[in-house]
C-alpha cells in the first residue's frame, strides 16, 4: 500500500512583504559567449559605443510596438501590481516588483525620450543609460519569466513582459546576451537542433531507438533522419 500523502497546511502570506533591497542583486545568468552572439548576428560583446546603439534600438522598438510606448507612458505608480509578481513575493527584492522592473527602462525612456526627463530628470525619476543601469537591466529583466500575471491587475493592462522582451532585445543588440537562450537558438541555427547534437551522434541515437523498439515490440520501426517525405516527425 502506498504511503499516505499529507499536504502541508496552507500558510497565509503577508499581503505586503517587507522590502529587502538588493536581495537578488547578485543573481544573474551567464552572459552568452561572443561566438554564440555572433552566430545570431549580434555583436560578440559590449563595444565602446554601446550606449548610443542601445538608445537607437530603443527608439526603433518604440516605433514598432504600441504596447511599449503606451506602457512606458501610462503607468501611474499606483502599486496595484507590486505584490502580484511571484519573484517579488518570493525574494522581497523591491526591484522585482513589476512596476519597479518596468521603471528600470521607464527611467531611461524618460531621460532620453521625453521633455520632462530631459529638463527635470530628478523630478520624474529619469536616469541616464549608464553601465550600472544596463547591469541592473541584465540582472532584473532576466529575473522576469514574462508570465504576464502582473498585467491582469494593472488598471491599464500594463504588461511587464512586453517591457522585459524589449529590454532583452536591446541588450542582445549591443552584445549583452544571455547564455542559456542564445546558445540554444544559435545551436538550432548552426547545428539544426537545440541540444547541439552533431549529425552522427543523432543518427546513432536513432539507430539505438530503432533497436530498442524492435526488442520491446518486435516491430520494425524506422526513425528517419534528414529525409524528405516521412509522415511522422520526431
Amino acid at each position: 500500500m502506498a504511503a499516505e500523502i499529507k499536504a502541508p497546511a496552507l500558510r497565509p502570506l503577508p499581503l505586503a512583504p517587507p522590502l529587502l533591497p538588493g536581495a537578488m542583486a547578485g543573481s544573474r545568468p551567464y552572459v552568452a559567449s561572443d561566438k554564440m552572439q555572433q552566430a545570431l548576428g549580434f555583436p560578440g560583446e559590449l563595444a565602446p559605443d554601446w550606449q548610443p546603439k542601445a538608445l537607437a534600438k530603443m527608439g526603433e522598438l518604440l516605433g514598432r510596438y504600441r504596447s511599449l510606448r503606451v506602457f512606458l507612458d501610462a503607468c501611474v505608480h499606483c502599486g496595484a501590481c507590486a505584490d502580484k509578481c511571484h519573484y517579488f513575493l518570493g525574494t522581497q527584492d523591491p526591484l522585482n516588483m513589476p512596476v519597479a522592473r518596468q521603471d528600470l527602462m521607464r527611467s531611461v525612456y524618460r531621460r532620453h525620450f521625453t521633455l520632462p526627463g530631459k529638463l527635470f530628470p530628478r523630478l520624474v525619476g529619469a536616469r541616464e543609460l549608464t553601465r550600472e543601469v544596463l547591469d541592473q537591466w541584465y540582472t532584473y529583466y532576466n529575473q522576469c519569466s514574462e508570465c504576464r500575471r502582473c498585467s491582469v491587475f494593472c488598471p491599464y493592462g500594463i504588461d511587464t513582459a512586453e517591457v522585459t522582451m524589449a529590454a532583452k532585445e536591446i541588450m542582445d543588440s549591443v552584445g549583452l546576451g544571455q547564455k542559456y537562450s542564445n546558445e540554444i537558438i544559435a545551436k538550432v541555427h548552426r547545428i539544426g537542433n537545440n541540444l547541439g547534437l552533431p549529425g552522427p551522434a543523432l543518427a546513432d541515437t536513432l539507430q539505438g531507438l530503432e533497436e530498442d523498439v524492435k526488442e520491446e515490440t518486435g516491430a520494425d520501426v524506422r526513425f528517419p533522419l534528414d529525409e524528405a517525405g516521412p509522415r511522422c516527425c520526431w
Partner: protein
Amino acid sequence: MSLASLLFALLYYVAAAVLVGGLAYRIVGYARTPAPLKIPTTPAPTTGGGVVLRLAREVLLFESLFKGSLWLWGLAWLFHAGLALVLLRHLRYFTEPVGSWLVFLSPFGVYAGFAMAAGLAGLWLRRLWLPPVRYISTPSDHLLLGLLLAIAGSGLALKFGVHTDVVAVKSFFRGLLTLAWKPLPADPLLWLHLFLVAALMIVFPYSKLLHAPGVFFSPSRNQADDPRDRRHLAAWAARLDS
C-alpha cells in the same frame, strides 16, 4: 481690463493649446504605432463588441484595479468619480444657456468636491504609508497629488469660504471662447485656483496623466482574442515574412 485679467486670458489660451495639441500629438503617435502582437490579457473578449464592453468596465468601474487592490480601488474611484462630477458642474462657466440636466447635476457636483478631496488625501496617505508604494514613488507623483489636492481645496474654499463673483468669472470664460475679452474678478484665491488648473492642463500631456488616453490604446485591453479566426499582421512584421 487689468493686467491680471490679461495675463490669465493669455495663460488659458496657452494652457488650452498645450493640452489639446499635446494630447492630439500623443494620441496620433499611439494610433500610428503598430501593435504587431495579439496580447489581450485573459479572460479576453473574442469580439469587437466585447472589447467595447471590457474597455467601458475598465474606464467606468476600474475592473482590473478592483481585482488588484480593494483599498486602492475605493480611493481611486472616489477621486475619479468626484472629479468627473466636478468637471461637469464647471460646464456652467462655459455654456449659455445652462441645460436643465446640468442644473440638476450641479448640487451633486458640490458633494463630489469633497469626495474628490477625500479620495486624493487617501491616495496620498497610502503613497506615504505603504513601503512598496513609497519605494516606487518619484517626486512628481507626490507633486501631482499635491497639485490636485490644492485645486480641490481652493475650489471648495471658493464655494464655502470666500465667495467670488461667479457671474464675472463666467463672463471672463465666455469672453475667452467668443474672443470678446472680459475682466476677471481681482480675487487672490480665485487666481490661485485658476493658476493651478492651468498648470495641470499644461503638465497633462507630459506626465503620467497620459494614463487617461493610454487605457484606450493598451493592447492587452483593447484587442479581441481572435488570432485563429483572423491573421493579425503588422506591416513591418509582414515585410520580415516575405
